[in-house]
């Protein structure tokens, strides 16, 4: 479904990604793990067209994404829940969801989808008219995910959805991620919380200073000595 090959990204003179290659198949949860600054966010940004690609290719459902502008990429069915949530704090919850559905024209279906989202996230329904900036961290993360789902993505990129959340909320969010997968959406998950990420993922890639250094089945990696040492704290 998503195929990334030999991806290079530069910030000025700094080479943030070095020949990163990986793929995501339909129906999977694939996770990218790695230390702070390893280039996980950069990878997702490159896929979504937020940073220019210096070399390599990104292919999504057979379309080359390289030359497309970000909003076109979203229209192809690629959702992105950005790092740090980045909800529109000055808009209401409902307006945030509307922004998620910005490019959709199927108004009839859209109505139903709002209903569906609200049944999945009852807390957001309660707060539909609240200014999003005043939501709690967990609620904001839910909103960020819900907002992205509104675009009906085939593949959804999630950047550290557990960041800044209390463990309880983390559990809740991960449950939601599994639900989304069950509903048929493919997921590329970036997480610092490698434990949890590996526990729900099918496959995983490990990034280290801009390079893929390990890859494999999530379970295998979780048990590998190397990963345990470096990312799971022994």
């Amino acid at each position, binding site marked *: 479904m998503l195929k990334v090959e030999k991806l290079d990204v530069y910030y000025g003179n*700094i080479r943030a990604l070095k020949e990163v290659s990986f793929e995501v198949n339909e129906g999977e949860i694939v996770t990218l793990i790695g230390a702070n600054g390893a280039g996980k966010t950069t990878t997702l940004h490159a896929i979504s067209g937020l940073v220019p690609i210096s070399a390599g290719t990104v292919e999504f459902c057979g379309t080359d994404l390289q030359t497309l502008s970000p909003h076109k990429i979203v229209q192809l069915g690629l959702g992105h829940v950005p790092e740090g949530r980045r909800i529109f704090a000055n808009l209401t919850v409902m307006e945030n969801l509307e922004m998620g559905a910005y490019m959709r024209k199927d108004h009839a279906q859209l109505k139903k989808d709002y209903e569906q989202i609200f049944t999945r996230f009852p807390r957001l329904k309660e707060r539909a008219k609240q200014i999003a900036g005043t939501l709690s961290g967990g609620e904001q993360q839910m909103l960020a995910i819900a907002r992205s789902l509104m675009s009906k993505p085939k593949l959804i990129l999630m950047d550290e959805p557990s960041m800044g*959340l209390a463990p309880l909320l983390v559990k809740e969010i991960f449950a939601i991620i599994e639900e989304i997968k069950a509903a048929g959406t493919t997921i590329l998950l970036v997480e610092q919380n490698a434990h949890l990420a590996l526990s729900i993922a099918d496959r995983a890639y490990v990034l*280290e200073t801009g390079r893929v250094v390990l890859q494999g089945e999530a379970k295998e990696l979780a048990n590998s000595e190397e990963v345990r040492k470096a990312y799971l704290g022994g």
Partner: protein
Amino acid sequence: MTTLLQAENLSIQFGGLMAVSSFNMELKEGELVGLIGPNGAGKTTTFNMLTGIHKPTSGRIIVRSRNGGPRNIEKLQPYQITSLGVARTFQNIRLFKDLTVLDNVRIANHFNAQYKSIHALLRLPVFYQEEKRIYEYNMELLKLFKLEHKSDELAKNLPYGEQRKLEIVRALATKPHTLLLDEPAAGMNPQETKELMELIKSIKEQFNLTILLIEHDMNLVMGICERIIVLDYGRVIAQGKPAEVTRDPMVIKAYLGKEMENDA
């Protein structure tokens, strides 16, 4: 042992959010204390209050100045607190990105520089002497962190790990008695983290430092901290020796929960 830094009933509010409430802490000379807690617990905010970047809504902070006397610092500006001997690093690296590594460190010598603007403008001998002293001292510091060969590089061109180290060097150059480190190992791989641990221990000895440290890397925290304070939702939920704290059910629930889950 004298108390170098003391916080009494510190609280701060952002809008409606009570980011830190009734925080109490006493840092004795030569201690190495860890401050841990989940994301958003208020650790960095605590640092920000201790260094004057945020003014606490209520509470007191007392610092022993270099020449001995205790001083209330809640109302002081960050540069004043630094000059009393409390230095810090930042969680989101805040180097002077477009300046060289050496200049980054030299800037931190500012209030120690023994000459006035007028000396610099007229290029009097005292200026050259001082500049030479500063240069040599700073190069020495850089050497400790194996950064001396990069002294002319722009800070933004250093790899992440070295940027973190440079932040520590820069803080050291202010000649602090107390050093506050905010996630110094973030972005370092386990090997680097190990080296960093050794480095922290050694500079602590060499410069006779007292250190307060925020870190999510439990290996590091358990490895070097003598005492740990755990924050959650702005409140201290536990404190004590590393071994005690890790057994505390509250801490496990709020922070270390992962292991529990695995066991379950």
